[in-house]
C-alpha cells in the first residue's frame, strides 16, 4: 500500500445517483503522484479517446477534487480541483487551501470524482461511513457566507445527533451564484475567500447541479513510511517557515502599490498600463483600517500569510474578505481604475460571495470597460455607464454576470469567448484587447518590464495558459514549485528545498528527488496536459502556430512608468519558446515527440498527436 494515501477515491455518478470506490494501481500513483498529475491521468483514461467531443459543461465531463500523498502532512493543506476546463478545453490543476483536504483524508478518501448531472441541486456529504447525495434546494442561489453558515450548521447538527458533545464543522468546497449559472470562469470556493480560481471549474460544478462537497472525518491521517522521520521533519520545516518573516507579516497583499511602483508589472485599466504611483493604495492603508485578523492559516500551515479584512463603517459595513491578496488587489483595483482600498475590499467581498474568480472576472470586467472607453460597447449595450474607477458600476456588473443578465450573459463566457462574440456583434476586432492565453485570463504579473518573475514565455508556452501560479521557464525549475505543489497537493508558499523532497520520501517511501521529479514526473504531467490543449474542442481549438503566444497587448510598449517603451520582443519570445519546447522534448511547435512520449510512458498519446506533427 502506498504511504501517505488513504487508498481509495470516491466515484460519484450524479445521473444514476450511484457511488463507488476506486482503487488506483500503485504504478499510476507513483507515475502521476496526486492532485494535478493524477487528475490529468484519470481524465485521459476516461475521456481521452474522444476528448475533442467532450463538452466541459455537459454531463460527461468529470469534476475532480484530489489530494496528494503529502496533503495534511506537509504544511499548507490544499485540494486540487480539475476536469476539462470550460475555458481552455484543456486540463488545469486548480488548487485552493482548505480543511476539506484534511477532512477528506481523515474520512478515508484521497479524492472524489463526479460525473453526470443531478436532476436537481445536490451536495455531497463525505464521512467515514461513505458518501451521501443530499438535496441542496435550500442552498441553491445562496452566497458564500450563507452557504457556509447553513451547511456548517446542518452538518454539525447531524453529527451531534450521533455523537456526544459539540461537533466541529466540515470542510466544504462550494460554488456561488456565478458557478450555478455556469459563468465560464467561475471559481470553486472554500472558506469564504479561498478559491480554486483558474480553469472555470465552478461552472463545471454548476453544470452538474452540484452546489457543494462537504467532508468530515474522524479517523487518523493515513500511515506514512517513516513516522519518526516525518515527526522530525515536521518540526524542522515549520521552523524554516517561521523565518519567512515578510510573507507571514504581510502576505501577498502588500503588492498593490509595490508591484506597480517597483517592478511595473501590475495591470492598470485592462493592462493598458502596468505602472502606477498611488501611495494611498499601499499595504498600510489596508492593514490598519481593515485587517481584523493579522494571521490566518489553513490546516498545518505556519506561513499564515492570510489576513482577514472587515469593513466596519459606512454603506459596506460588514463586508468580510481576505486582506485582499495581491491578485485581487490588482484585478479589482488598478486594473479597474480603482485606487481606493475600501472599494477593493468591498469588491473582493462581492466577488467572493458570488463565487466569481476575482482574477478571471476582474479581467473580463476590465475588458468590457476598455471596450466602453473606446466606444465599442455603449451605455445602451450595458444599461449603464462603465467608467474606470466607478466601483458601483463594477459591483453591478459583477452581479449581472453572475446572473447572466443582459450583457452579463456574453461576459459570463469569459474574456476570450466574449471577445469573439462582441467582434461578431459589432463588426470590429476586439480580440486585440483580450488579455488571455489559451482562454485563461492572465494573472496580475506582466512580462513587459522584464522585472517580475514570469519569463517572456511564462504564459505563452504553458498548458495552463494565463495561470500565473504555474508559469513556464526552463522545463526544470518550473516543475519543482507549481507542478509538484499542485500534485503533492500542498501550498507552494510552504515550498522548501530540500525539506519538501526529504518529506516526500519520508511520507511515501518512494525514491523522489527534485531532479527526478523535474526531469521525469513533471515532464510527464505537463506533456499530458499539453496533449489535452492540443486536442481542445468542442467549441474552440488552439492553433500551435498562432495561439501559443502572449496576448497582443504584451507586444504594445508600456506607455508609462520607469520602463516606458518596453514590451515583449517577438524574436526573443519565439526563440525562448522553441528552446523551452525542445527542453521539454517537444517539437519546435510544441507537439510532444514520439521519443518523448515513449520515454515518459505516454506512448498511448501518439496516435492522437501524430497528425499534428509536420
Amino acid at each position, binding site marked *: 500500500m502506498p504511504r501517505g494515501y488513504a487508498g481509495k477515491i470516491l466515484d460519484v455518478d450524479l445521473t444514476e445517483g450511484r457511488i463507488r470506490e476506486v482503487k488506483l494501481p500503485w504504478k499510476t500513483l507513483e507515475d502521476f503522484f496526486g492532485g494535478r498529475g493524477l487528475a490529468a491521468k484519470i481524465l485521459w483514461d476516461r475521456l481521452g479517446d474522444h476528448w475533442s467531443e467532450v463538452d466541459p459543461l455537459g454531463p460527461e465531463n468529470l469534476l475532480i477534487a484530489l489530494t496528494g500523498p503529502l496533503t495534511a502532512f506537509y504544511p499548507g493543506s490544499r485540494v486540487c480541483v480539475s476536469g476539462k476546463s470550460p475555458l481552455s478545453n484543456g486540463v488545469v490543476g486548480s488548487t485552493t487551501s482548505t480543511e476539506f483536504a484534511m477532512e477528506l483524508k481523515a474520512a478515508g478518501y484521497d479524492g472524489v470524482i463526479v460525473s453526470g448531472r443531478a436532476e436537481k441541486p445536490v451536495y455531497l456529504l463525505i464521512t467515514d461511513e461513505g458518501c451521501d447525495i443530499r438535496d441542496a434546494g435550500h442552498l441553491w442561489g445562496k452566497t458564500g457566507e450563507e452557504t457556509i453558515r447553513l451547511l456548517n450548521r446542518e452538518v454539525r447538527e447531524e453529527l451531534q445527533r450521533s455523537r456526544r458533545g459539540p461537533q466541529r464543522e466540515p470542510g466544504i468546497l462550494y460554488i456561488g451564484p456565478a458557478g450555478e449559472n455556469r459563468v465560464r470562469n467561475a471559481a470553486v470556493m472554500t472558506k469564504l475567500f479561498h478559491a480554486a480560481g483558474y480553469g472555470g471549474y465552478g461552472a463545471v460544478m454548476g453544470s452538474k447541479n452540484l452546489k457543494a462537497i462537504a467532508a468530515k472525518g474522524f479517523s487518523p491521517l493515513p500511515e506514512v513510511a517513516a513516522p519518526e522521520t516525518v515527526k522530525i521533519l515536521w518540526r524542522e520545516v515549520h521552523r524554516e517557515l517561521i523565518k519567512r518573516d515578510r510573507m507571514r507579516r504581510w502576505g501577498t497583499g502588500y503588492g498593490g502599490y509595490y508591484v506597480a511602483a517597483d517592478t511595473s508589472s501590475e495591470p492598470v485599466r485592462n493592462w493598458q498600463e502596468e505602472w502606477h504611483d498611488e501611495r494611498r493604495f499601499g499595504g498600510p492603508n489596508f492593514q490598519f483600517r481593515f485587517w481584523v485578523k493579522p494571521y490566518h492559516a489553513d490546516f498545518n500551515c505556519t506561513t499564515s500569510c492570510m489576513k482577514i479584512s472587515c469593513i466596519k463603517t459606512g454603506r459596506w459595513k460588514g463586508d468580510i474578505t481576505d486582506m485582499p491578496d495581491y491578485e485581487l488587489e490588482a484585478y479589482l483595483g488598478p486594473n479597474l481604475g480603482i485606487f481606493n482600498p475600501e472599494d477593493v475590499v468591498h469588491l473582493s467581498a462581492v466577488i467572493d460571495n458570488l463565487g466569481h474568480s476575482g482574477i478571471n472576472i476582474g479581467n473580463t470586467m476590465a475588458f468590457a470597460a476598455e471596450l466602453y472607453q473606446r466606444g465599442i460597447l455603449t451605455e445602451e449595450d450595458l444599461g449603464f455607464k462603465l467608467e474606470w474607477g466607478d466601483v458601483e458600476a463594477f459591483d453591478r456588473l459583477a452581479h449581472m454576470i453572475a446572473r447572466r443578465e443582459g450583457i452579463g450573459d456574453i461576459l459570463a463566457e469569459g474574456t476570450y469567448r466574449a471577445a469573439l462574440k462582441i467582434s461578431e456583434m459589432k463588426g470590429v476586432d476586439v480580440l486585440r484587447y483580450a488579455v488571455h492565453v489559451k482562454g485563461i485570463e492572465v*494573472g496580475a504579473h506582466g512580462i513587459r518590464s522584464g522585472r517580475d518573475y514570469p*519569463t517572456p514565455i511564462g504564459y505563452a508556452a504553458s498548458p495552463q495558459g494565463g495561470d500565473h501560479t504555474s508559469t513556464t521557464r526552463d522545463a526544470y525549475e518550473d516543475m519543482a514549485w*507549481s507542478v509538484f505543489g499542485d500534485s503533492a497537493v500542498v501550498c507552494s508558499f510552504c515550498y522548501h528545498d530540500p525539506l519538501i523532497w526529504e518529506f516526500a520520501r519520508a511520507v511515501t517511501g518512494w525514491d523522489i528527488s527534485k531532479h527526478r521529479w523535474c526531469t521525469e514526473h513533471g515532464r510527464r504531467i505537463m506533456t499530458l496536459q499539453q496533449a489535452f490543449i492540443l486536442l481542445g474542442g468542442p467549441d474552440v481549438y488552439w492553433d500551435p502556430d498562432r495561439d501559443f503566444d502572449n496576448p497582443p497587448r504584451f507586444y504594445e510598449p508600456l506607455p508609462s512608468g520607469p520602463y516606458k517603451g518596453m514590451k515583449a520582443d517577438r524574436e526573443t519570445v519565439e526563440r525562448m519558446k522553441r528552446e523551452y519546447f525542445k527542453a521539454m522534448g517537444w517539437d519546435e511547435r510544441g507537439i510532444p515527440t514520439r521519443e518523448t512520449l515513449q520515454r515518459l510512458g505516454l506512448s498511448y498519446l501518439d496516435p492522437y498527436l501524430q497528425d499534428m506533427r509536420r
Partner: protein
Amino acid sequence: MRVRVLVFGELSTRLGWSLDVEMGEAPTIRGLLKLLSDRAGASIRVDGGVTVLVNGRNVNLLGGLDTELRDGDLVVLLPPLSGG
C-alpha cells in the same frame, strides 16, 4: 567568440536587459558569471536564486558551472520563481 545574455528581474537594473559578451578561450558559465558579477558589482550565484539557462536549458541539466559556451549561444538569467 560571443554570447548573447538576456537579464530579467532585479539584476537588469545593474546589467541592462541585453548584452553581447565577448569571451576568450574555453568559455564556461563560471567564467561568464564571474565577468557579469564584476560588471554588476554583485555576486551572481546559481544557488543564490538566479536561474541560468543556456539555449533554454537549465545549467543544472548541462554541466553546471562548467557548462561550455559556444559562439551565438543565448544565456538567460532569471529571478526566482514566486507567484500569488
